[in-house]
């Protein structure tokens, strides 16, 4: 399984670099917290209204936030011609994509793990009893987000308006994922029977399979020039 080993090596490199400066992680956590904090002003402090909308608010904050990390993960490969170095690395191009995907996935998941408790405190939601189920919903949602995001950020890296372009492309493409993860989280947080979340889990599974496969097939064309 050299492909997996090489992908893991790239992911490890990205996470190590991230660990040394923690630039993306800190910015993402603070940004997500800030958005969650600001929402309460948008709702005029109406607690019932905020609680009803809380799942959607949580995920919109996390999806806005994920753009910060995704944009950076490929952009820094362009500085000092790091991408050319990576391409010399004796591995299939797929390993580079998978490694980048795993690195992005790990960072976004870590941000989520920090944001969930903050969300529970700010919005007065009972999260602890539901945490395993919430993670079960969050994982496929985050995989899909990272998969599309990694592919798109390798498309927009180096462009003039990349900061604007990445969300322009990412948000419409991931709408099915946003719908699914928000509905799933609603089911969990409201204590509805978990069966109601199963179709959404399947939808996210289908999304993940389609987009990881399509990305693996097309990624080499994006980096070969």
């Amino acid at each position, binding site marked *: 399984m050299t492909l997996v080993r090489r992908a893991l090596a790239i992911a490890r490199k990205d996470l190590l670099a991230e660990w040394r400066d923690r630039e993306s992680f800190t910015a993402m956590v603070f940004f997500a917290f800030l958005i969650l904090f600001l929402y309460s002003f948008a709702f005029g402090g109406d607690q019932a209204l905020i609680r009803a909308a809380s799942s959607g608010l949580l995920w919109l904050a996390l999806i806005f936030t994920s753009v910060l990390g995704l944009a950076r993960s490929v952009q820094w490969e362009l500085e000092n011609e790091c991408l050319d170095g990576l391409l010399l690395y004796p591995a299939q191009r797929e390993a580079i994509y998978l490694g980048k995907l795993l690195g992005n996935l790990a960072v976004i998941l870590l941000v989520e793990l920090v944001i969930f408790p903050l969300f529970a405190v700010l919005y007065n939601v009972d999260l602890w009893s539901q945490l395993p189920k919430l993670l079960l919903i969050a994982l496929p949602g985050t995989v899909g987000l990272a998969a599309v995001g990694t*592919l798109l950020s390798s498309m927009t890296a180096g*462009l003039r308006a990349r900061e604007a372009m990445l969300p*322009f492309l990412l948000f419409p493409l991931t*709408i099915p994922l946003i719908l*699914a993860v928000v509905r799933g989280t609603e089911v969990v947080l409201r204590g509805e029977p978990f069966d109601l979340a199963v179709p959404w889990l399947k939808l996210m599974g289908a999304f993940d399979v*389609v987009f990881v496969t399509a990305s693996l097939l097309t990624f080499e064309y994006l980096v070969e020039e």
Partner: protein
Amino acid sequence: MSERSVERALGLLAAVGLAIGLCAGFLYAPPDAEQGEVQRIMYLHVPLILVSYLAFFVVFVASILYLARRRERHDAIAHSSAEIGVLFTALAIAAGSIWGRPTWGTWWTWDARLTSTAILLLIFVGYLMLRALVDDPSRGATVCAVLGIIGFLDIPIIHMSVVWWRTLHQPASMLRPGPPTVAPQMQVALYANLAAFALLYAYLLLKRVRLEQARWELSRLRMEVAG
């Protein structure tokens, strides 16, 4: 027959077809039993949306061909088809909105098919923006080919997710199995318009592809002159 004369013939056919379609829609087909005259917007709305789906399918196929063979022509087809698709989708949404106001009582509603069409429009507007932003033409072609492929693959998933989310639209009346529920004159008018818009699409596509090729030719000549 040369490409130019095919193009001219298509243009002529499209013009005649649109004229016939107008007559069929306004004169031949009876007004709707419940909705009255306003239902005639259907003869514009339905062909536009069906042809725009065709246009996005052409983007998908041409994008795959471009990645596989690297011919500029496939990229020109994908780009041109995406532009026409965006135009037709936007017109279809506008026409639907004008139709929705008197029949549903609202310009816009978060109905399933309406929403998924709007998402599709957003994805391909992003496609055109991305293309405008990339300076290197061959890089732009590659990047947009990938986006054209994943954008098209997303359509069924978007559709399913939004249908589960909510639904209000009248079920599709022409493309479903079983006996059609539409009066025969109405069907004739609809198919006439569908054919006319398909011809218009083919004409615009050819014209736009030729324009794109002329642009490359120009930049090649410029390079030569500049040495």
